């Protein structure tokens, strides 16, 4: 599957790279959905002998392929929310020097990166590669509720119901883009939604 080329954007937006196997004794790979492809692309038996994979399939069927790589530890979680305490625990118990690889959707990478930074891992120990859905994790600036996997602009806040437009302004702390009411100045005048990059 080809990778999505994000258009150039403002400076708060994260930039994603391409995973590469780095030297190190311990590797943690966290991925969702098509993010599995990025792991498959760099996996070698030597690397996998020191790798812990945490994977959230989200309706895809890559899990068996990842399991077949024989990583030292493999966890398949039903959702990010269900996996997050495990991610936190893993990070807490890991030594500095751990190499962290994140792949898949922006929401997964942003949240997992946050956990890694909170656990004290430096930015440069964390690699990212975007794969799969270009949906965004959005924070409603009004009610502060997070709506996951937003594919269209404008969209309806899943918490307060306001019609929000999708900004490019991004908070790493929240791992979310900002959604702002689109019809504040003309209540009810909401343009038809389009795909975010259309």
């Amino acid at each position, binding site marked *: 599957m080809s990778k999505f080329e994000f258009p150039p954007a403002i400076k708060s*937006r994260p930039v994603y790279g391409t995973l590469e196997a780095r030297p190190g004794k311990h590797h943690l790979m966290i991925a969702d959905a098509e993010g599995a492809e990025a792991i498959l692309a760099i996996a070698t038996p030597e690397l996998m002998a020191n790798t812990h994979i945490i994977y959230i399939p989200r309706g895809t069927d890559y899990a068996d392929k990842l399991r077949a790589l024989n990583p030292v530890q493999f966890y398949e979680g039903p959702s990010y929310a269900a996996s997050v305490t495990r991610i936190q625990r893993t990070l807490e118990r890991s030594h500095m020097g751990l190499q962290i690889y994140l792949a898949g959707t922006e929401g997964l990478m942003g949240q997992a990166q946050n956990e890694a930074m909170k656990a004290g891992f430096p930015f440069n120990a964390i690699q990212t590669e975007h794969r799969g859905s270009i949906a965004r994790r959005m924070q409603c*600036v*009004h009610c502060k509720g997070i709506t996951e996997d937003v594919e269209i602009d404008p969209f309806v806040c899943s918490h307060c119901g306001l019609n929000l437009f999708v900004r490019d*302004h991004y*908070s790493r702390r929240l791992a979310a883009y*900002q959604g702002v009411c689109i019809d504040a100045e003309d209540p009810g005048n909401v343009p038809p939604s389009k795909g975010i990059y259309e």
Partner: protein
Amino acid sequence: MTIQFNDETFRDDYTFRNSDWAIDRFPFPFHEDSYMYAVNMEQHRGGPDGSVYEKRFDVDEHYVAEMRDRAMVLADDPLRCQSLPHMTLAGWDLLELIMVSKSEDYPDLFELHRDGDRWRWVNKPMGIDDSFTFMDETTLPYGPMEYITRQTQGDFCVLDQREDNLWMDAGIVTTQADWSLDFDIGMNFFEWHAPVPLAHEKGIFVRALKFLLNIQQGAPARRLNWTMTVNPLLDTSPENYHKWGVQKTTLTPENIGEKQHLRVELQTFFRLPRSNALVFPIRCYLCSFQDLMTKPKWGRRLHRVVRDLPEELATYKGFIDNRPMMLDYLSKFDDGLPTSPGVFPDTETEPPLQT
């Protein structure tokens, strides 16, 4: 002079007014007939007597009412005041800077009595007389930053300095020009400025950051920024935009002089001694178009600036839709005569409007 504090509101019935004194000293931000982003920074070492630049933290007739408005905003939304755990020391630094500055600059309004770390702070306009132990949070009703900034006009960002960058790791933000502290907290200088058009491309933020990183204790700096606000609404927050945004559509040719306000931010920068953090007070001044037009020079100049402002800036500042109506109004105060350089109104020397 003794200040008469106004009993006024910045919401609902909007009873906010500027006295002639406040209009005379309004920090008109345009030193020439056009405007573009620039690294417009200078030392903050006083200014003309009575001007808003004179004191380290200017106190004016709106003080008490603004503090009442801030308390209401915080009661509705405590997320407007946040401090990451490592910023408490900077909060004490800020409390000290403000208490020392205000008690020295306004001895009739504020008193600070220090006996070692036993401090007593008297704020007469707000009726506060508190004794506490410096550096002991348990002796104050709020954290040190929140305590002192609930008593000081203007928003405050407290920036941690590390990795050759500034990080917005604490702040109290209730009079902002449409940006969210809750969203921006933890960001660095380039990230929180990301939405600003044109300035990144002009290299302005790279140069501005270099300047800020080198600010020394005791040598503060300042700059002005500006935007437009319909009604004298202090809390133009993104959080509440779904409530106040519609007010922008209430302008008419009849009410624009009264309703449309030029919103000016006097932004200052102080290095803090113990934490090496930088504090960035953003003090908001509002003035209605009709009050500005009492100064012929400001009338001529505001028309030219608004007329010639690049579309990107008028859009970013949120008044692109109202610009034509503003220009209809302002053009009546521009007779084409030249204007004197500098921001001051020069009422003695500038000719009256020719009709």
